């Protein structure tokens, strides 16, 4: 038992390290794909690493009005995202920390990070910061319940809210068509786009303050703070990708703990992430950014789809 636990904790650390390492890579990969799809010359794959490293080197320029909350927020946000990636099963479902937070708590972690980044955005007291915070909260209050509903659909199928159990159940069932999962999958994709500040809701590469959401909030950040926030953002993208993969393509995530399982799991994860990145880039290329007031409609649709997924499950699948 103890050996098992130790192995589990080791695995847990491995997951964390993997997340920390892979997250900027995923961002870089998506950016590269997007550039390719848009007929631009692609930035190097490793660019995010270099950017983060560069930012760590730079000195922090703080606005005179910034409070201690402003300085603490990047660490909190980073810690939240790290915790999130600890919980999501990527390499194994047998994670000791998974019991600490289930799907609902995971949504809670994202919300916690969002609240802090919004508060940090308001802290300096510029018009853009609070504008970004307001928009971020607008996106959040629609995306959060939608995400929760997606989790609920899968929880209903697996009779559990524990992510590990959900993934196990979904991964080891006999092959059957779950129409509810299709709905949930679409909803989840839409939510992910919004939550990770991607086109069509937000544009991560914009330089026009008026259209920003995420970027507007972090306008005042610089140096190591900005580095942490950027890193946290890519961790978030990574975590969302992993959640999507775990829920809708759970194959390849082993239950047990061991070197041999890792050897299967790791390539599977990398492959799935790479495919996911391509799809993300494709979506971003094919769609145009919406006006901010269209975002509620977009997310409302996601929310409705997620609720529909639950209803569909109850109507068509329950009792089977």
């Amino acid at each position, binding site marked *: 038992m103890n050996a098992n636990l130790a192995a589990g904790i080791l695995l847990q650390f491995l997951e964390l390290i993997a997340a920390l390492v892979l997250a900027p890579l995923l961002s870089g990969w998506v950016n590269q794909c997007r550039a390719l799809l848009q007929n631009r010359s692609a930035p190097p794959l490793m660019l995010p690493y270099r950017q983060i490293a560069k930012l760590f080197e730079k000195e922090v320029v703080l606005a005179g009005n910034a409070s201690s909350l402003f300085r603490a927020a990047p660490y909190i946000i980073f810690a939240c995202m790290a915790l999130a990636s600890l919980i999501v099963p990527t390499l194994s479902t047998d994670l000791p920390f998974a019991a600490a937070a289930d799907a609902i*708590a995971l949504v809670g972690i994202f919300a916690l990070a969002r609240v802090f980044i919004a508060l940090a955005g308001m802290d300096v007291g510029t018009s853009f910061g609070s504008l970004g915070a307001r928009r971020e909260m607008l996106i959040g209050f629609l995306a959060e319940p939608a995400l929760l509903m997606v989790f609920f659909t899968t929880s209903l199928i697996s009779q559990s809210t524990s992510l590990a159990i959900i993934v196990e159940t979904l991964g080891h069932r006999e092959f059957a068509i779950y129409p509810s999962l299709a709905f949930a999958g679409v909803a989840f994709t839409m939510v992910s786009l919004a939550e990770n500040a991607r086109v069509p809701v937000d544009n991560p590469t914009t330089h026009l303050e008026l259209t920003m959401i995420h970027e507007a909030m972090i306008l005042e950040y610089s140096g190591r703070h900005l580095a942490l926030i950027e890193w946290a953002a890519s961790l978030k993208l990574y975590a969302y990708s992993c959640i999507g993969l775990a829920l809708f393509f759970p194959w390849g995530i082993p239950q047990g703990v061991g070197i041999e399982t890792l050897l299967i799991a790791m390539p599977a994860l990398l492959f799935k992430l790479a495919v996911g990145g391509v799809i993300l880039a494709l979506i971003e290329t094919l769609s145009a950014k919406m006006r901010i007031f269209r975002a509620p409609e977009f997310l409302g649709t996601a929310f409705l789809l997620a609720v529909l997924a639950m209803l569909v499950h109850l109507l068509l699948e329950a009792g089977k």
Partner: protein
Amino acid sequence: MQDALAAPLAIDWLLALVLCWLLLGLAGMVAQRNLRYVARTLFPLGAAVGLAIAGVAFAALGEVPETVVLPLGLPDLPFHLRLDSLSALFLVILGGIAAGISIYAAGYLRKGEGTAPGLQCLQYHIFLASMALVLLADDAYAFMVAWELMALSSFFLVTSDHRNPEIRRAGYLYLLIAHIGAIGILLSFGVLQGGNDMAASNGVSDYTFAHMRMMHPDGFWATAAFGLALFGFGAKAGLVPLHVWLPEAHPAAPSPVSAMMSAVMLKTAIYGFLRVSFDLLQTRLWWWGVVVLMLGLFTALFGVIFSAVQTDMKRLLAYSSIENIGLLFVGIGLALTFDGFDMTILAALALTAVLYHCLNHAAFKSLLFLATGAVLHATKERSLGKLGGLIHKMPWVAWLSLLGVLASAGLPPLNGFVSEWLLLQSFLFTPGLPHGYINMLIPVAAAAVALTAAIAGYAMVKFFGIIFLGQPREERLAEAHDAGLLERIAMIWLGGLCVALGIFPVFVIEQLDAVTQLLVGTGLGAAVRSGGWLLLAPVSENRASYEPLVFLLVILAVGAATFMLVRRFWHGRVRITGAWDCGWTLQSARMQDTSEGFGQPLRQVFSPFYRMTREEPGSFDKAPRYSIVVEDHFWYWLYLPVARAADMGTRMVAFLQQGRISVYLLYSFVTLIVLLFLIRG
């Protein structure tokens, strides 16, 4: 009762403590204007009494119910008092929160504000004592007396600054709705004690709760009693559409009173509703649960949507209280539905969520109201549009209210999240219900709850961000000062409660077990105990689990590690300079988002919910002015028509009294003729 003389029971201790409160109140009348005596001596003593009450009641959780009969009240109906787990739990809330608020009030009371401090002390302690008696009452009369006394004393507290007509109006509306609600409760008791079995009551009225428990009213009368109780307690709790008093009264009251009302008084309504629907009514129909669930959902959504667009900080919190009351009713509705289908373990789960949320809401809402009190004292300003940047001047208040804000937004690892989590868990179990429509309804309801929780986050970010963050929107905010020592102690106590309730849910749920055992016959105690004190798994670990302590520790550890690593490998250099102005140097504090601006997205998304009156400047206005007033539709849809109907009634009645003596004689004549005709017929 003989043994009672030998060894005082817990209930005797409680009564003695409640009496202490009353005596402290009376002591305040001795030197009404002596602030040092009233505020610095009596209020802290009151806080100590509160702590003692919480302690005694805590010890009584899960014990055998104790009763005592006081030689007061009506003949044949002395005051019956009873202490069981349900009342003990709410007494814990009362005592614990009162301890904090009394300490706060000790530092908060100032000279020359409305009613004399001594009188306020009397009213405040009567308020506390009457709430305790509401929780202890075991017959309808004692309950009603305490209930109305509670309304009355809080009314006087609300209107302590009675020179302001707005406040008078708020107090009036409050007492009116409270009184009408109380009549509803009274009638509910009337049904309960009579049942439908007139013969059994034998013409003698017995208003004790024990008697009501033995009555088994048939479906119609049970529904009548339930409906009246829902109306009466709903009016007190602020269930939509009976909520209109709440956003008026809470801002009008002095902050400790708002805190007390929101944190504890609203809970007494929940207590009463639980008492009637789960304890006194022995007949329960499952569809009541659905009704309560729908009402609760609507209330929750309504409250939070309005909360997010308020421009007055206390109104924002008041609407947030409406939201939380809605969530509580959602939980009660679920529990009733489960209970109606005999799924007691699930009913216990939903009830646990309700009770837990009662604790949580009491803790974080009182904390937030006290924070607004501190801000109000420091700035003399309630309007969000004139605050800002106070985190620099009032760090204690700011950081402590951040705890309240996070808890209120339902974020882990604080307490608000735990009850929300439990509530959502109970939704997830609902598909087992043997009724198709309800099954379909539940996902929608769950979605609405999730939406509510998310918008609550929005409202709370607005609350905290606009008050404490950014730049001060007014010059004189620079003179603001942090809260005093006593106020800080109080807020630390309440903030500590928020954290403790969030971190140790297993322990709390074990205590709640006794209450759910009492109400639905089963509890989660055994299930949560088996998971160990760290792991919260209300049903089984495989279904759902949550470990808040691990959660907190991981976040702290990662955060700290990151900080240290960053400092270790790089540097800690900081340069302070102006904010980024996008190349436009005319940025001023006025350009931050206003509170109206922050609410704008919600107004856009939920525009049908609001009744908005806009005043927009034209293109050529010399002195352009923009304003928006957001009001409640219910005021226009429900209350004004009712008022108009009443007015029409009065006009018709006034028509009777025209002043002509001939007409008056004609009335008598016609009355006589009609009566004679009737008895002949």
